[in-house]
C-alpha cells in the first residue's frame, strides 16, 4: 500500500553495515556490507576494525539500498538507525550517518533498539506481529528471551544469558575444533553428520533452583573444551562431528525448552526466534517440534533477516511512524547499553523534525 510509511534503516552495531528500505511491513531492499572476513583471523569481531569498515561502506551501501528499492531518498518518510545496544564506536558511525542523512533530507529520525529490531523484522516475512509475541533472540552478541506486547513501546525482558551469548559459545567451540570463524554455520554443518546423543554435555541453568528463563553457556563451553583436550592428551582422534552435534544439541535443547516454557507460563501462543543463531538448522527443527507439541505458532524469519541487517531497523522505524511515536532529537547519541525496555529513543518533546532549533523556521517549507 502506497500510504504505508517508507523508511530507510541503518544498522552498525557490530560488524555488518546494513541499510534496508521497507514500506510498512514490505521489504524493498536489504543491502549489507560485512567486514567479517577482516575479523576472521582474530577469531572474533575487533571493534576498531568494524568501525573503520562501517565508515568506508556506509555511503555505497545507502546508495545500493535505494537503487535496490527503486525509491528516491526524497520520498522517504523517515530514517531509522540502531542507537544501541552494540559496540559503542561502531554504533556511532551509523548514528552519525543517519542523523546527517535525516537532517539533510528534512526527514524525522528514529533511534531504535537493536533487539526490538530483531523481533520486528519478522513482520517483513510473516506480516504484522501478534501482540503479545514471545521472542528468543540468539546471536554472537545476545541470548535473550523477551515478551513484546507492543514492539514500539512495551518490550519486557524475561531472561538473558548470565555469561556468554549462544553464538559466542559456537565461535569458541569452533575455535577449539580449529573450524574457523564464525563458528555457527560450520558447527551446524558438521553436526548434521554427527550423533547429538554421543556425548552428554551439561545443560546450563536447568536445575530446579536455577532461574527459569536465564541462560548460561560458559560451563558448557568449558566442558566441551575439556572433553576435547582430554581426547587430545590421550592421543585419540577427536570425533569432530559428534562433538559438534552433541554441543549444538545442548545449546538448542536449553534454548527451546526455556522459550516454550516462557510461552506456556505467560499464556503466549506465538514464539519468534531471531538473531544469527536462528539460522541454525537444529534450533529451527527442535523449536518447531516443541512448539507444535505445545500448540504454539513458531515464526522464524529467513536466515538473511535473522542476522544483523538494515531492513530490521527500517521495519521497526516504519512501525514507529505508523504508530506515531515521537522522533529522536538531533543530539541522539549511540548508547552501547541501551536497555531492551527502550524500543526507541524519543526526543524530549519539542518538534524539531523540519525546523531550525534556533530560528524555528521550517527548513523545507
Amino acid at each position: 500500500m502506497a500510504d504505508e510509511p517508507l523508511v530507510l534503516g541503518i544498522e552498525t552495531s557490530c560488524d555488518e553495515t546494513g541499510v534496508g528500505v521497507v514500506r510498512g511491513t514490505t521489504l524493498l531492499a536489504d543491502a549489507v556490507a560485512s567486514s567479517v572476513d577482516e575479523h576472521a583471523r582474530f577469531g572474533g569481531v575487533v571493534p576498531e576494525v568494524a568501525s573503520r569498515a562501517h565508515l568506508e561502506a556506509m555511503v555505497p551501501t545507502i546508495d545500493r539500498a535505494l537503487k535496490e528499492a527503486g525509491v528516491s531518498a526524497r520520498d522517504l518518510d523517515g530514517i531509522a538507525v540502531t542507537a544501541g545496544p552494540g559496540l559503542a564506536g561502531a554504533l556511532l558511525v551509523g548514528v552519525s550517518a543517519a542523523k546527517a542523512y535525516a537532517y539533510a533530507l528534512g526527514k524525522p529520525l528514529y533511534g531504535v533498539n537493536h533487539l526490538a529490531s530483531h523481533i520486528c523484522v519478522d513482520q517483513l516475512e510473516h506480516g504484522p506481529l501478534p501482540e503479545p509475541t514471545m521472542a528468543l533472540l540468539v546471536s554472537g552478541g545476545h541470548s535473550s528471551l523477551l515478551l513484546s506486547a507492543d514492539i514500539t513501546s512495551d518490550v519486557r525482558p524475561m531472561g538473558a544469558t548470565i555469561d556468554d551469548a549462544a553464538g559466542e559459545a559456537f565461535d569458541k567451540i569452533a575455535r577449539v575444533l580449529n573450524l574457523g570463524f564464525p563458528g555457527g554455520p560450520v558447527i551446524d554443518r558438521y553436526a548434521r553428520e554427527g550423533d547429538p546423543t554421543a556425548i552428554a554435555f551439561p545443560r546450563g541453568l536447568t536445575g530446579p533452583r536455577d532461574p527459569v528463563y536465564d541462560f548460561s553457556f560458559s560451563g558448557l563451553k568449558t566442558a566441551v573444551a575439556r572433553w576435547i583436550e582430554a581426547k587430545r592428551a590421550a592421543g585419540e582422534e577427536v570425533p569432530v562431528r559428534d562433538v559438534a552435534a552433541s554441543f549444538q544439541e545442548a545449546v538448542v535443547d536449553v534454548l527451546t525448552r526455556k522459550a516454550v516454557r516462557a510461552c506456556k507460563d505467560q499464556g503466549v501462543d506465538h514464539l519468534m526466534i531471531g538473531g544469527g543463531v536462528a539460522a541454525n538448522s537444529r534450533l529451527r527443527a527442535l523449536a518447531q517440534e516443541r512448539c507444535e507439541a505445545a500448540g504454539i505458532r513458531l515464526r522464524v524469519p529467513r536466515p538473511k533477516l535473522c542476522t544483523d541487517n538494515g531492513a530490521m531497523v527500517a521495519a521497526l522505524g516504519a512501525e514507529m511512524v505508523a504508530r506515531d511515536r515521537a522522533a529522536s532529537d538531533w543530539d541522539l547519541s549511540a548508547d552501547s547499553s541501551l536497555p531492551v525496555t527502550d524500543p526507541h529513543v524519543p526526543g524530549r518533546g519539542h518538534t524539531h523534525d523540519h525546523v531550525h532549533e534556533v530560528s524555528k523556521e521550517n527548513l523545507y517549507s
Partner: protein
Amino acid sequence: MLLLALDTATPAVTVALHDGTDVIASSSQVDARRHGELLLPAVDRVLAEAGLRLDAVTGVVAGIGPGPYTGLRVGLMTADTFGLALGVPVHGVCTLDGLAYAADLEGPFVVATDARRKEVYWARYADSRTRLTDPAVDRPADIAQQVAGVPAVGAGALLYPDTFPRAHEPEHVSAAALACLAAEKLAAGEELPAPRPLYLRRPDAQVPKNYKVVTPK
C-alpha cells in the same frame, strides 16, 4: 559558493560556514567525549545564525585528522552523508594544516595534537600554508631533536613542554580556519584530498592464541 566546514579530530566540535569570501557563521565547543551528540545541533545552529538552509551549501569540507578515531569518524561520516544527500562535493583537509593556518606564523614551526597514549600527532611547517613533513604519530621524547628550536602550536605541544618549550595557542583546530584554507586552495584551483581518515596507527587487535591443529580440516 557556500562551504560547510567541520572538524572532530581534536577535542573541539567545530563547524563554520564560508561564502567564498569570509566566514559567515561558526561554532566551537570543546568536549572530547560528546562529538556525536554535539555536531548536528552545531550545524543546525550555524545555519540558523546565517539564516540559511543546508541545501544552500555547495561543498562540504571535513578535517581528516589525524585524531582519536572515534571522534574523527563522527565528522567524516557526517560530511560523507551530507555529500550524498545534497549531491555536493566533500573535500578533506588535514586537521594539522587547519591548526597551522590558524597559527598564522611566518617562520618554521611545528603543529602537535594530543594522540593519547602519551603520543602526539605532529608535522613540521615552513609557514602557515606550507607543510614540510607527512603527519606522524610519535612519543614526544622521540622527536625532540626534530622539533627543537622552533615554536609549536596545538594541545599536543602544550601538553609536553619538555619537548615543546615554545608551545602556544591555538590549542584546538577551528572549522573557520579549515574553511578559509579550503576556500583559498579551491580558489587557486588546487585539488583537496579525499575525505578519508588519517588514522596513522593500525587497529588494536589481539590475535587469540590458536590451539594446535590436530583435527582434520
